[in-house]
């Protein structure tokens, strides 16, 4: 039943609905990368920056319009936190807590890690790890896009 000939009898109907993904830049270096990724155009993904707003329960979209953190988290299937080594990733705590409260899956990305000092990487990890159910440390800027395609963003 697992032969190549049998493969043509597999049901061809769609087997999933689109997922809602929210990508949040936690610091300036991450924001530049997130803006670049967003420019490719995605049907099921929204992009935000956090900065100091998350402490007030707010995010901002890439045009600078503020929005409620809890509202954005509520309809998310996955929240992706993006930070650079040594950046200000304090917002991870408030966002992560909101995701935890609503049982939303989180992935933490540390980008531009190649050549980063251990102390900087540790600092960012300390902020990201408690709130990420998956952490990815990538040397290549295009990985996030590939991951989002893989997740059907």
């Amino acid at each position, binding site marked *: 039943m697992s032969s190549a000939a049998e493969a043509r009898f597999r049901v061809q109907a769609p087997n999933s609905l689109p997922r809602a993904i929210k990508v949040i830049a936690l610091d300036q270096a991450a924001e530049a990368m997130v803006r670049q990724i967003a420019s490719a155009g995605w049907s099921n993904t929204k992009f935000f920056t956090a900065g100091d707003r998350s402490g007030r329960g707010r995010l901002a979209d890439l045009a600078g319009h503020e929005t409620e953190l809890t509202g954005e988290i509520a309809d998310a299937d996955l929240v992706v936190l993006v930070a650079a080594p040594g950046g200000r990733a304090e917002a991870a705590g408030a966002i992560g807590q909101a995701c935890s409260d609503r049982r939303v899956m*989180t992935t933490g990305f540390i980008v531009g890690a190649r050549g980063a000092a251990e102390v900087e990487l540790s600092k960012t990890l300390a902020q990201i790890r408690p709130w990420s159910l998956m952490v990815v*440390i990538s040397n290549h800027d295009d990985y996030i896009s590939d*991951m989002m395609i893989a*997740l059907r963003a």
Partner: protein
Amino acid sequence: MLRKEQNELLTQTAPGTPMGRLFRCYWIPALLGDELPENDCPPVRVKLLSERLIAFRDTNGRYGLMDEFCAHRGVSLWFGRNEQCGLRCPYHGWKYDVSGQCLEVPSEPEESGFAKKVKLRSYPLVERGGILWTYMGPPEAQPPLPEWEFIMVGPSHRFTSKRLQESNWLQAMEGGIDSSHVSFLHRGDLDSDPLFKGAKGNQYNLSDPRPVFEVVESPGGLHIGARRNAEEGRYYWRITQWVMPSFTLIPPRGNHSVHGHFWIPIDDENCWTWSFDYHPTRELAAAEVAAMRDGKGIHVRTAPGTFRPVANKDNDYLIDRAAQKAGRTFSGVEGIGMQDASLQESMGPVVDRSKENLVSTDNGIIMARHRLLRAVKAFTDKGALPPGVDLAHQKVRSAAVVLPPDVPFTEGARDALIARLETAPASI
């Protein structure tokens, strides 16, 4: 999800394909040394990367790996006579040496020199660490011989087996870096398998069934860390190595041996699963080797005289629904190796990745595909040597360690992730 053309690019390894050219950058395991046990022993058919080849060991102990079929009328040289430093086709007596050079064409006058004009495609075949390795790429680009730690230790420190897997290499390899399946599929084996049980690390596994994963790029591939809670706020890390294109090293448990795999394409719908155990600082005990031969740990019992598992798709992998129901095994299939193989083969020979629904914990798989695609493109466009060819990329170890909470595991376990002969692995 992968688009259809990406899936085809990564899964097709025949000559001339992009991934086939990439695989041909590496020394790959071709046969167990035991398959050619003595000079002038019977030749062995072997298919690798969609090429049908014949392996033999000549009168002087030289190994040969060449086109399986006689240049005259296409007879399989598996029927050949291995005699006097050459393999002779039994049909009309054409004879070849280990380089594929035809030495004799009995029907033609020797003085005609016709035999010199006939040569079968051949590849080097070299014994190292009990394995016969081949390199199937262009001779001018042949890299140095492999130096994986498991083949550099003494024969009494290692055990290697291979088995046929009836699926494409990529879905088999992806199983090796899919750390999140262990908590389900293999949950019944940690405390019962003689090659795993008794390690303190098992308690961390069993007391924290929801590990958190971290994926970090390494020079040769990936470090995949699975993190669980340990005492005093620290983390227990199990760090798997993946080195391109298809080598994985599983973290050890206690003083048990370290184990890992190679997945080598036979053709696009079958692969060899190579499984090895080794210990850098001690010999394997007779009981351990006996358990490995009996299909324990990551090894599998195969039908006598073949490399096909006793449990296979024709007998539904001997699934035991009572054992499944009672929780003795999670899937009903016995043995870690066959638990993996049965599910991977059930996907079909080449899984349609355009229909899959990956989730965040699949980032190890996503990242591996990302790196493979990058490497294929860099090699195809610019001739860039892919990761994993460099001997430094092969000198890696998996590790099981406890670290403070904010330490990058690649820093905290930096020394533990490098293979240094005759030093103990980091294991709990």
